[in-house]
């Protein structure tokens, strides 16, 4: 009786175990399959060259699986270009307005409820918004241009695990929007070597001066511990090779007709540094970002989609 009972119990137990094990295996497998599927359809990094800004972006976002992968219907989106300087588009001190416009159009098509565009400009905000061409591009394509030059838009946040930047004030749109798209322009920068996606995030905080005295590169890397953009798009259509970031000479800006796209902020910066002709390790904030576990600057292990348009 007892043995019988024991055997039944044993069978019951082992049966349950088998089911659980099978289920675990199946689910695990399933997860593995879907992860593989994602990897094959959505690359870690997309690089496109040889086209106009809108064509570059069309190709890049298509290769990344479409804007619908990042923006769901009814979501709010904040787009943060570089609008730091009171300069016209041909000087490439700011993000290309045609690119910003195309990104907005894709967000609209993906069903975004509201699309906001802003920067905490270095020069006078309104003048930068105007001369960069981004204000008119944004307004004409259905986005809202939001001021970034008043402290009341900024709220204090704690940077978890920040080494030098422990607290900072962040623009409320970054805190409130569902999707955050970071759109820097690739430029030489006299203070930091290069300005890229990680550095562009200096324009969502109020007190930039703090970065400079606490340690520029470490603070740039630290901020990513508070918030990483959902998507980074680097504009390398025109690039400033020397005397950046604001008033380079006529010979310093060249056509590169390239665009990078990645959700990985360190990887995209590493790729952009290479396009500029620099070793990513030499840009200290990329180095800190990589070793701080924020992202990956080693491009060898990544799934990169390279596209050359017919022109």
């Amino acid at each position, binding site marked *: 009786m007892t043995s019988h009972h024991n055997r039944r119990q044993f069978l019951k137990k082992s049966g349950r175990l088998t089911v659980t094990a099978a289920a675990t295996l199946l689910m695990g497998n399933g997860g593995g399959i879907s992860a593989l599927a994602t990897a094959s359809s959505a690359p870690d990094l997309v690089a496109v060259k040889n086209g106009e800004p809108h064509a570059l972006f069309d190709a890049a976002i298509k290769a990344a699986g479409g804007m619908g992968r990042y923006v769901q219907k009814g979501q709010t989106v904040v787009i943060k270009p570089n609008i730091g300087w009171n300069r016209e588009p041909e000087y490439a001190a700011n993000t290309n307005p045609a690119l910003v416009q195309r990104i907005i159009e894709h967000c609209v098509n993906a069903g975004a409820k509201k699309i906001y565009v802003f920067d905490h400009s270095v020069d006078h905000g309104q003048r930068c918004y105007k001369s960069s061409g981004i204000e008119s591009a944004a307004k004409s394509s259905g986005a809202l241009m939001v001021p970034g030059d008043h402290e009341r838009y900024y709220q204090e946040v704690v940077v978890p695990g920040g080494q030098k930047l422990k607290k900072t004030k962040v623009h409320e749109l970054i805190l409130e929007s569902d999707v955050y798209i970071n759109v820097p322009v690739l430029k030489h920068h006299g203070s930091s*070597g290069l300005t890229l996606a990680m550095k562009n995030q200096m324009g969502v905080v109020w007190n930039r001066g703090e970065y400079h005295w606490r340690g520029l590169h470490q603070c740039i890397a630290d901020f990513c511990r508070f918030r990483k953009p959902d998507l980074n798009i680097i504009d390398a259509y025109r690039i400033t090779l020397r005397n950046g970031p604001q008033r380079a000479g006529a010979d310093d800006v060249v056509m590169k007709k390239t665009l990078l796209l990645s959700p990985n902020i360190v990887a995209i910066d590493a790729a952009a540094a290479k396009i500029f002709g620099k070793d990513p390790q030499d840009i200290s904030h990329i180095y800190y970002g990589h070793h701080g576990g924020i992202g990956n600057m080693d491009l060898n292990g990544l799934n990169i989609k390279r596209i050359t348009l017919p022109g």
Partner: protein
Amino acid sequence: MGVFGLFILAFMGIEWISLSPATRFLSRLQAIPALLGLLSGRLPAFFFILVLLALTLLFGRIYCAVICPLGILQDGVIFLSRKSRRFRKGYRKSTPGLRYGILALTIVSISAGTTLLADAIDPFGVFGRISVHLLRPIAIMINNTLVFTASQFDIYSFSPVTARQIPVAVFWVTYAWFILVMFFSFFHGRQYCNTICPVGSLMGILSKFSWFNFVLDPDRCTQCGACGRQCRAGCIDVRHHQVDHSRCVSCFDCADVCPESAVAFTRAHKRETAGDPDPHRRRFIRTTLATGAGALVLGAPARSILNGSPASNPPAAATAPGSLGIDRFTNTCSACHHCISVCHTHVLQPTVFEFGVAGMFQPKMDFSSGRCDYTCNKCGGVCPTGAIQPLPLARKQRTQIGIVDFLKDKCIVNLYKRDCGACIEVCPTHAVYGIAEKNIRYPTLKKEVCIGCGACENVCPVMPKAIIVKPNIVHDVADPPYFQDGGEKIQVDRTDDPFPF
């Protein structure tokens, strides 16, 4: 009213109104600014002085009625005062001693080389400072409240404005003058204009000779006293059928209220009894001539005492591009603060003693507050005196108001061997640029291209600053912007390069 509204909006710092041709014309037509402009040798000021002389000699003090914004402001107060029945009616005796004394003192002080007194009592300057320091903060507060309320509803069509703290002395002096003018006008009509204002006094003298004036017709006048009660200057002596033309501000109230049409605006001095010179006027002319001559002799020493910074020493702060240099600037500026209101970077701030007693309240370049925007030349555009001359942008971008100095031992990059470069980033001419050494960019100077805009000093994150602008005594011309590796051609089209990863 139109003039008043225009100036109110202009002093709120609304760019397109401040720089509109109407504002530019009307602010240059202001008496003290035009006079100071003329004394500094501005040719357009000569034209405006001629216009003012012609207007006054034709129509009396019509200037005080329709051109002077402080006069119009007082008329508004007088209107309220009448509504509340506090207005003191009737003829008032004039106070020629005080009145011409202040005028004489103003003229003497200007010839002695200080615009201090003129700046303090100039009606345009008083109006400007009241608008910029008392009304504008309220306007900014209302604007920002609306902007931030609208932003709650996702409306971002308007931009907030950041206000700056001004020196307390500037606020209190402005406030005191505001109260003074309000008090005078509420209880005594145009008393400020007829006691303190040097423009009112000077034009009062001229008015006596003007072609048209108000005259009471003794044959028609029933001595009902309506005109005398209405007169905001209290200058109609009904009993003797006399109008004190030196105090009349040509407001036409008397003509409007007279039930018998006994008040006429007509060729007046024909009717005046000939050979009745005003003893006060004579005394004024005598005093002025004497003190003027004295001022010419004593001018130089007085100037050196009054001006805190004689031309041999650099001033404590730089002056705006277009002002040519500290001495010329302090001798020409009327401290109306219009430039301060349009300066969007807030680099222009009122001084207290930085330019000496003589230059009190005149605007300085305050690099702790802001920096001179490389792409802006608004201050020269709005200046009514020409103290800040309008500069085309290309010329402004080469105008050197000071020269950068680098204090290496305070600089973060040099102290801690790590990137900062705040100064490098903002320098518009690359007068401070980075030289990389072991992958750290060290600020390096190219002084001859520095224009002294103060961007570097403004953003330098250490205290005390590691990079500062030393003001020029006389403004200079900087070399064109400097470009590292300039001249080395880069292949224009690099789109054929393969992806480097």
